[in-house]
């Protein structure tokens, strides 16, 4: 399938309010198709609420590490934390999400692909969750070198690599008109003190244009949902302040320096 313009997002993290706003905004921007790079659950409230939204909007969804864990009934989210504080929050979030995700939705996760390949204009896109070679590999902007990305483009026969997983967006132009894009996440703000979230529009004009689109949604309503579900106040604080409070150990120095904690 060849598209002219698509919308891509990752990391829904049960934020059904941001998901609804993203779908609406992508349509307003005349995206011909919507893609989700995985991690539907975790962090936010009422995980089953995202599934009907994704299905009704015809979003093409692939699995992230969280989805693999839920589908296969694994004991944790697969993020690989070592710090007991991070593991405390990760376990709490995973247990809540596992308990509140229906069997029907877990079954649906099992049917999803681990990779999506499409074409935008003349560009061959390879979509993955973490990296093309490992579902939970973190591709941060400050630890992902050009040489590595060029090699992946060659190895996976792609002009554009798309990933998510870290929670912070970036775009890198590579030699030979190749690109790597971390599309960011719509489940929580990206640790910059702002409360909105981000998705990505890719347009063949005919040269590739990559645009990060902010999504403003009712985050106070989400915070109320989270409190009602008795999710940790540290998570609520992130939604309301735009600063990450947990699972910070995996952040490289540059990204960590930009945050508050």
């Amino acid at each position, binding site marked *: 399938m060849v598209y002219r313009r698509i919308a891509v997002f990752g990391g829904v993290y049960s934020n059904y309010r941001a998901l609804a706003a993203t779908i609406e905004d992508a349509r307003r921007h005349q995206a011909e198709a919507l893609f989700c790079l995985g991690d539907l659950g975790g962090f936010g409230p009422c995980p089953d609420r995202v599934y009907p939204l994704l299905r009704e909007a015809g979003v093409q969804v692939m699995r992230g590490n969280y989805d693999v864990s839920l589908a296969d009934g694994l004991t944790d989210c697969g993020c690989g*934390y*070592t*710090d*007991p*504080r991070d*593991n*405390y929050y*990760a*376990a*709490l979030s995973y247990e809540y999400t596992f308990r509140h995700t229906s069997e029907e939705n877990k079954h649906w996760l099992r049917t999803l692909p681990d990779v999506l390949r499409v074409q935008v204009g003349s560009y061959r896109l390879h979509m993955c969750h973490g990296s093309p*070679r490992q579902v939970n590999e*973190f591709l*941060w*902007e*400050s*630890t*992902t*070198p050009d*040489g*590595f990305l*060029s*090699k*992946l483009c060659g190895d996976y026969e792609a002009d554009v690599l798309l990933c998510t997983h870290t929670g912070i967006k970036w775009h890198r132009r590579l030699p030979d008109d190749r690109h790597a894009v971390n599309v960011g996440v719509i489940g929580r703000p990206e640790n910059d003190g702002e409360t909105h979230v981000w998705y990505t529009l890719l347009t063949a004009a005919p040269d590739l244009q990559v645009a990060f689109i902010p999504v403003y949604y009712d985050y106070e309503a989400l915070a109320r949902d989270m409190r009602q579900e008795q999710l940790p106040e*540290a998570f609520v604080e992130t939604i309301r302040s735009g600063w990450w409070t947990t699972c*910070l*150990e*995996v952040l*490289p*120095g*540059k*990204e*960590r*320096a930009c*945050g508050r*904690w």
Partner: protein
Amino acid sequence: MQTIPQAPFHNLHALWFQLTGTLCNLACSHCFISCSPTNHALKFVAPETVYRYLDEAETHGVREVYFTGGEPFLHKQIIPILARSLQAAATSVLTNGTLITPTVADELAALATTSRYSLEMRISLDDVDEARNDAVRGKGALRRALRALRLLQERGLPPIVAVTEYFYEAPETTPQEPGSGSGFYQKFRDFLLENGIEKPRLKVIPVFAMGKLHPSETGAAYVTPGMMHGFDVTTLQCTKSRIVADGGVYACPLLVGEPEARLSENSLSEAMQPCSLYHTACHTCYVTGMTCSNY
């Protein structure tokens, strides 16, 4: 005689340099290669050698570069070497921190600010108690490491504190409610916060029974062929990293200078081949899931 298991080589995620050989300004009592101010067993790596291997590593899509020693800040060309490395990839230095003066910290901050990739300073400590720490690392080591931590933080470089399990056997990583109890991580986090390090980052490393802690041969444990069945071999760092040191390219930062671990005299490409899990250190990595990279 039992066959020695092999670890396949998957990809070059990390390239290490044992930049200053076995020379260190400290002489820690648990050092795995017995580094000291007088140990010249393994020599420095020349800047030209570093640059040549970095060029080669880039063609293999290397993701991270690490500099260790000895004490890397004993190398007079450390700053230009780091500048070149940061052109290729995110770069980390494993250091005791005692040689990081305000001038050095300024130079590091300038490098970090102008680089697209992260520059990480990983500073080693053994305990939050000065007497206990310095009993291992030498008098004044804790105070000087703390000075480095502060200097780096003041310049916008949040340092990583690396702690061995020398005093703390297998610290818990199971979920623990924040602020509860006196866990290993909490203890170091509290210590760093009390000392003005606002974004505490910890890296915990097991102690390897080698170098100054070499066990008797009868007590040593090894990886056996049977242990490889069903084992996720990618958890072993030697499937995705190599180290350049005096004498060539080795399979593992712990085994520099060991003939059995040397995979090439002068070629990274040649060294990207399976390696032998022959050493007791291999057993420690197997059992602990040890990763020597930052994350």
